[in-house]
Each structure stands twice: as C-alpha cells, then as structure tokens.
C-alpha cells in the first residue's frame, strides 16, 4: 500500500507543505536573516552583522520587559496551578453537588479572545480604581501588573482545572482505597498518593502556564497597552512596539533581533519541558 501511496504526494502532501513553506519556513528563514540587517521593507535589507543584537540587548526597555515577563510568569504559574489543583481536588470529591455546573462556569473565560478579555477587565478594573480613589490603569503601574495577573487567573484557572481533573480521575481507585484501608488521612493521601501520581499532569500544566505567560500578547495590549510609559510592557508587546511604534529605520532590525532572542528563549523552555516529561515517563 505504501508504494502506491508514494506517488500520490501532489494530492496528500503538496497543499499543506506548500502553505507551510509560505506560512512558516520562508518567513522564519527570512526573519532570521533580517535580524542581521538594517531594513524598512523586505526588498532592501543591508547586512550589518550583530549590531542589531547589541542594540537589542542594551535597550533598557527590553531588559525591563524581560524581567517583568519573568516575574509575571512566575507569579501566574504558581497561583494558577495551586488554585486550579485545589479546585480540581474539591470537584473530584464524592457527593459534591453542582460540581458539573461549576466546571462549566470556570472554564468559560477560556473561549473568549485575549483582546475582548482585556477590554472587559480594563472597564472592570478602572471602575474599581475610580471607586476606591486610585489612579486609573493608564497611570497606574502596580494596578496594571496585578490586573493582568488577575485577568490571567480568571482565564486560565478553568483550563488547568479541567486538565487536573482528568489527571485525578485517571489515578486507579485501588491506590486510593489501599490508602484508606491503611488508615491514611486526607492530607497524607494527597501528598503520598495523589500528587506523586499526578506528576505528569503537573508537568504539562506548569509548562502550559509558563509558555502562555511568556508569549502573552493580546491581553497585555488590550488591558494596558504597556501604559504608563512602557512600564507594564511584556516581551511580546515590546517586540511589537519596537517594530511598529518607533520611528527610524534602525528599529525594524532591532525588533527582528529581539524576536529571535525571544524565540530562542521560548525554544529553551520547550526543550526543558521535553526533558522533564521524558524523565518522568522513564520513572513510571
């Protein structure tokens, strides 16, 4: 069968491969090349070596965005996973009424796009800030940062909760019964039986939240747009602003260099994730 299939490549392979070449491979290679160039459009790049990278790494706004993104990612990763796991543990209890409807409600914000979410929360947070006599988001860095954290909690807890519930339900019930027979308390069962068996799920959720935090763009753009004065700007938004919001021919190349650095960071996180999931699989 494989032999006869091989000659059908124009039908099976070509459409996807061609679109993939134009939608990913060529722009990726071109982007890599342009990060070493000075350009305003792709038709007239001038090779300038690594000077874009030097400029990108010495840009204080970029390093500020990097540390802010790192802090933001740590905060949301911890909060989302702790809260989502706690809720998942409650919802897998026997005899809790209404847990299906709660699940439906908590998952809902996930389906709404980042831009819409950002504006919903901008209206809500500005309303709260006005009523407690604080400055609005456009002038308030702390509110901008924590607002974004709350927005992400609201959006992602439901998602991670669903994955944790699936993980908890796949723990063999014999384990839990054995623990009960041995007289383990609920607390002991949690730490000695449930969490060790949940490690693959926890790894998945940790990396999902880390990459989501690192790549966050839409919510950041819609909620604060980086205001006041780029102080709530995360990495992805910083790259976007370097490209499109700054005057001068040199910024395009610097933006592309920043994008390459950003890309390498995200790839590193994924490599660590791959290693972590593989080592977990060996243990089992």
């Amino acid at each position, binding site marked *: *069968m*494989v032999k006869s*299939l091989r000659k*059908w490549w124009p*039908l*099976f*392979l070509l*459409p*996807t*491969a061609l*679109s*993939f070449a*134009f*939608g*990913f*491979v060529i*722009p*990726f290679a*071109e982007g890599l090349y*342009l990060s070493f160039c000075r350009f305003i459009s*792709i038709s007239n790049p001038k090779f300038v070596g690594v000077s874009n990278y030097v400029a990108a790494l010495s840009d204080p706004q970029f390093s500020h965005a990097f540390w802010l993104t790192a802090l933001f990612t740590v905060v949301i990763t911890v909060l989302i996973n702790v809260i989502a796991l706690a809720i998942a543990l*409650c919802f897998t209890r*026997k*005899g*809790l*009424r209404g847990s299906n*409807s709660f699940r*439906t409600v*908590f998952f809902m914000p*996930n*389906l709404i*796009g*980042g831009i*819409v979410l950002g*504006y*919903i*929360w901008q*209206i*809500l947070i*500005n*309303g709260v800030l*006005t*009523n407690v006599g604080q400055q609005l988001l456009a002038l308030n860095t702390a509110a901008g940062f924590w607002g974004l954290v709350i927005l992400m909690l609201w959006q992602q807890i439901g*998602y991670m909760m*669903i994955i944790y519930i*699936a993980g908890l339900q796949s723990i063999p019930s014999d384990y839990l019964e054995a623990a009960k027979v041995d007289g383990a308390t609920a607390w002991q069962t949690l730490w000695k039986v449930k969490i060790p068996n949940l490690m693959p799920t926890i790894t*998945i959720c940790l990396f*999902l939240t880390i990459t989501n935090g690192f790549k966050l763009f*839409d919510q950041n753009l*819609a909620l604060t747009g980086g205001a006041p004065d780029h102080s709530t700007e995360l990495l*992805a938004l910083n790259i*976007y602003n370097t*490209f499109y919001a700054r005057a001068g021919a040199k910024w395009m190349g610097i*933006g592309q260099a920043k*994008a*390459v650095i950003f*890309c390498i960071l*995200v*790839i590193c996180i*994924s490599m660590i994730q791959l290693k972590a999931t593989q080592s977990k699989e060996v243990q089992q």
Partner: protein
Amino acid sequence: MQREKITNRILTVFFTVLSLAWIYPMVMILMNSFKQGTAITTASAFDPVTAATSAGFANYISALTKQGFAAAFGYTLVITLTSVALILVCCSMCAWYVVRVNNKFCKALYYLFVFSMVVPFQMLMFTLSSLADSMGLNTPYNICFIYLGFGAGLAVFMFAGFVKTIPLEIEEAATIDGCNPVQTFFHVVLPIMKPTYISVGILETMWVWNDYLLPYLVLDSTKYKTIPILIQYFRGGYGHVELGPMMACIMMTILPIVIVYLLCQRFIISGVVSGAVKG
C-alpha cells in the same frame, strides 16, 4: 460521614458564590451595554441599569449598522470556517502520508512541523505579513492559506499521533479489496480519525476566531476588520470612543461563543484536554 456531608455543603455554598463572581465581569458588560453613552463612566460601571439611563437596544442597533459589527462578524466567520476546513482536510491527509510513507523527506518535514508549534508569532510577523502582501493573500478569502501554513504544526502533530495508533492491517485489507490510496483514506482512515477531527477542529476554531495580530498585520484593516480588530479599533482608534456600542459589540462577541460552548461542552472540554496533553 456526617463531617463529609457538612464539608460538601460548605464547599457547594463557597463555589456557588465563586461561580457568581466568575461570571460577574460578563454580567457587568451586559448591564453597561444597555446604558446610554453618557451614563457609562468608570465611576458608575457597577450601577445597574435604571429607567433614566437605559438605552434599550440602541447600542446594539448602532453597533450592527454604524460600527460595522455585522461585517466584522461575517469576515470572522468566513475566515474561521474556510481556515479550519482547509486545515482539517489538508493536514489530516498530510499527516497520514507522512506517517505511512515515512521516508527521509517526510521525517524532516514532520520535525519541522513540530518545531513550528514552538516558535512565537513575533518571530515571523513582519516577514509573514510582507510575504502575504506580495502574494495577494491579504483578503479574508485568501488568508486561510496562511492559517493552513501557520496552523499546520499542531494539526499535523495531533493527526500523526493518532495515525500511529491505527493498525496498518486495516488499510492493507482495504488495498487488497481494491481501494486506491484516496479511497482508502476517505472510506477507511477518515472515519476512524473522527475524534481527532473534532479535537483539532475545536482547538483551531478557538485560535482562528480569537486571533488578533495575524489578521491585523496581514489584512488591509481599513477595508477588512475581524471582530478582535474591530474591538481593538474602538479603543485604539481616533478621538471619541463610543462606549455604548463597544459594550454591545463585546456582548455580541461573547454570546455566540457561550451558546456554542453550552451546546457542545463535552466535545470542547475533551478536545482541549487531548490537545493540552499532546501539545
């Protein structure tokens, strides 16, 4: 046992309150979408609608007729439907070919697909939008080819993961019975892969429907606005922001999503879970 029951009661009450808080942001937008423009201020954002501030359905009518929501909805629908259909058909065929033929080229292509899942959009946003411009892929009717290219990574990965679990004997039996590869794919492989089609379809729909940056950079946004672009345009646009119609737009964006979600909840949740576990 008595203690268990009491704990469950307390938890039910607690989660009921929390659920209400969870949907409050949407309820707040709903309230504001029925207010007159002058009554929507940051200080009164939480006040319920009263007879004095009510605008009836005026904001909705204005959003649909004057602010271009109907057109944006149409464009978003066209883009989502064509892109997801194209991704489902082309990527499942490609994944089957790649797994079954499995020569050097296929292996290299497969690793490239997996690699593309990791790369953030910012890496290629400029070059991709320039390329799309020069190739005339910048209308809502052609942008689906870009989505096929950029969305192929996840789709091929998920389909390929499933194809690997299908026993080769089934397809060989079909070949012996006289099916050519096209017939084998559409009559034998496709029906077996139905659950994966649903998962991939849901994940890609959620992505394309809500996507902002790709259509914003690729489409000529003075002519074609998708829903996220329209909502961003309200705030980022020039001069006076009409808050009432904007709230109505947000509501009309959320409502179809919520309805679809409530109707096919089980598929959506299981689709998302399988996507997360594999991705």
